[in-house]
């Protein structure tokens, strides 16, 4: 258990993410319940709620790139805008044509 401990930049400790993911899978629970993973919810292709986002990297009317854990998620489309931005979540609205996960 001690070997799996990781130190975050702000000094917080994440206890074995991979193990928690496995445990959640075995218990047939969604990984987001136990593990600290990004959760995305799509309402058609016009609204996306992203929970667990780490910041905005690019913001134009056609592309919005956000940091989601170790990945970067890229939303492409038309008339894209951020409806609401909070500490760890945001809502993207517009006509989303593509979603890419950049590792």
């Amino acid at each position, binding site marked *: 258990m001690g070997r799996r401990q990781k130190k975050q930049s702000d000094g917080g400790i994440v206890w074995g993410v991979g193990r928690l993911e496995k445990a959640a899978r075995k218990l047939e629970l969604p990984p987001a319940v136990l593990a600290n993973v990004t959760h995305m919810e799509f309402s058609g292709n016009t609204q996306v709620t992203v929970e667990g986002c780490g*910041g*905005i990297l690019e913001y*134009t009317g056609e592309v919005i790139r956000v940091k989601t854990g170790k990945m970067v998620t890229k939303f492409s489309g038309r008339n894209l*805008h951020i*409806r609401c*931005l909070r500490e760890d979540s*945001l809502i993207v609205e517009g006509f989303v044509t593509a979603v890419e996960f950049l590792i």
Partner: protein
Amino acid sequence: MILRNIRWWLGYVRFGIAGHSPERFLTLAAREGYVLWDIDKTDQGHQAKVSCRQYRKLWSAAKKAGVRLRVQKRHGLPFVWRACRGQRGLLYGTVGAVVILILLSTRVWCIDVEGNETLSAYEIKQAAAECGLYTGMPKNELEPRVVQQRLMAKFPQIGWVAVNTWGNTAKIRLEEGIAIPEVEDTAKPVNVLSAMNGQILSMDVYHGVSEVKVGDAVVQGQLLVSGVLTGAEGQESFIHASAKIIAQTRRVFVMEVPLEQMEKRTTGQQVTRRSLHIFGASLPLSFQGEPDVPYTRTLQSKPLVIHGVELPVTLYEETFAIEEPVAITLTQEQAREKALEEIRKKQTEVLKDGKVTSALEREQVVDGVYRLEMECVCEENIAVEQEILLETDSVL
């Protein structure tokens, strides 16, 4: 919608973000716990909205990200309040108007009466006030069922009544019922007797055995139609006899009228008192009291009506016509007129559907009193029912 209203009440600003890394600024602001919304990218750059309390705190994030913030528009109550700083009266007036409007909407200001025919609306409103429905009462204290029941008890002639509220108006809808006719107890055995002395002109016997015939002279209390039937074998049965017996009768009507009389006459002087009833409260418009001398009072109400809707503003006008007692001496002719009038009233009361066929008048004045004696020959129904009292043997 709720969120938008809350934001308006707390106040928020729309600001522009100018610089090379607006994305970094947005990320920093979010990390510091500030909530931004409606973040848009326009030709002039990025813009976003934030609550007015958090806007000043965004400067540190802006400095770190190397962007400049500029307020584009202020929204919400705090800014409206600040704008009205020089015109507080207007603001207080608006707030006061809203409060008054809310308070006034919780009360009953108008009472409408519909469906009344013989009963007057004033009479019903007075009764409703005694039953718990009055102008100016709180709407939540109105108990329509109780008012309905009490109104029904007060006015037996009402068939049904409903009390409904419509805005600030209480509507009393009613329908006057048909009076229940007196039910004749036909099971009770009765005889028909004569109410007066007279000579029978016509007979309509509905039930019973006729004991007299047309042309017979009868005296008061004489049996006209018997309710006792005798069978072929001598057995007796009792029925409810009924008949209409028209007879020629004689009646004497006497009326005395003193020639010297005291009569109340208006002097022509009038005292008018006005009051304004507004929202259930009475506001006197004149400061005159009731006169100490005898008077006749008339009350006139003028409600304010706009587009057929009666408003809770009524002008009441009381007029006191001053009277004084005046001694008058009637001529014999005037006394006769009065006496005749009284005798006619008496005849209508006594004869009911009967009539006077001829009359002989005798008049005289004794000690300042005019006396009119009228001996009338009448045609009237003299049939009167009398119960047959039966003695029953009790077996112990």
